[in-house]
């Protein structure tokens, strides 16, 4: 699902094309096996992210990681992890369809998100991600750069979040 990019007042919103999205749960002691399976060193501190060769991983909880990869690689990734399951017990769940990703970019992107994000975004470094709330919807908020964020939101909450972003965009456009 690819909505057109909407842009006003130094903020742009776009719905991103699907990716292979996986939820990984594993004891930190076994992390090396997961890193090997996914092909990048999984970060160990909550919030931190690592991007490498088109794969990205963010640590969302003490034993939880969000993985992104190109869609075409999903089956292979699942297979690679399955091989490691006996030695390094874990749970790898495909959630590619559970969520939509919305990109919010532009010089005023951070300010824009404060319409519904309760976090202090000035303390959120580029490259990090957090599960949090956007209005009443639980989301994963990823900061790619100073002026670039992504929101991953559950499918049925997407219209609510998306409409709210549209309202906020018009609000920014009117300058008040």
């Amino acid at each position, binding site marked *: 699902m690819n909505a057109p990019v909407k842009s006003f007042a130094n903020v742009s919103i776009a719905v991103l094309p699907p990716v292979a999205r996986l939820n990984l749960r594993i004891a930190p002691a076994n992390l090396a096996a997961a890193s090997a399976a996914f092909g990048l060193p999984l970060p160990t501190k*909550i*919030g931190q992210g690592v991007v490498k060769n088109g794969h990205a991983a963010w640590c969302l*909880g*003490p034993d*939880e990681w969000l993985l992104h990869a190109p869609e075409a690689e999903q089956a292979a990734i699942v297979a690679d992890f399955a091989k490691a399951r006996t030695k390094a017990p874990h749970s790898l769940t495909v959630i590619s369809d559970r969520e939509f990703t919305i990109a919010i970019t532009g010089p005023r992107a951070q300010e824009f998100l404060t319409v519904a994000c309760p*976090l202090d975004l000035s303390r959120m470094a580029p490259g990090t991600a957090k*599960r*949090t*709330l956007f209005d009443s919807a639980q989301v994963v908020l990823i900061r790619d750069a100073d002026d670039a964020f992504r929101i991953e939101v559950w499918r049925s909450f997407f219209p609510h979040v998306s409409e709210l972003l549209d309202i906020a965009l018009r609000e920014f456009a009117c300058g008040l």
Partner: protein
Amino acid sequence: MLLINCPYCDDALPELEFAYAGEAHIARPADPSKLSDEEWRDFLFIRSNPRGLHAERWRHIHGCGRFFNALRDTVSDRFLTTYPAGQPRPDVTKLEAAE
């Protein structure tokens, strides 16, 4: 809205991300069938409900997902500390001395 320090995230975050989960340190008995009706009632229902320091459970439900414990003053709503589930209740006198 409270600001709560999640001991797993090591960050003070808005209450909206958290769900309160009742009094802490009420462990489920290993074998409930051995308990008398009164003992089972105490486990299920009796709560200390103190006016003052309260050990309580929270879950960072819209964050890292972890349950953890907190010591909070129920009169001021001030948190003294938060700590991972499974750890014993911290010694308050030490905490206050450290402040």
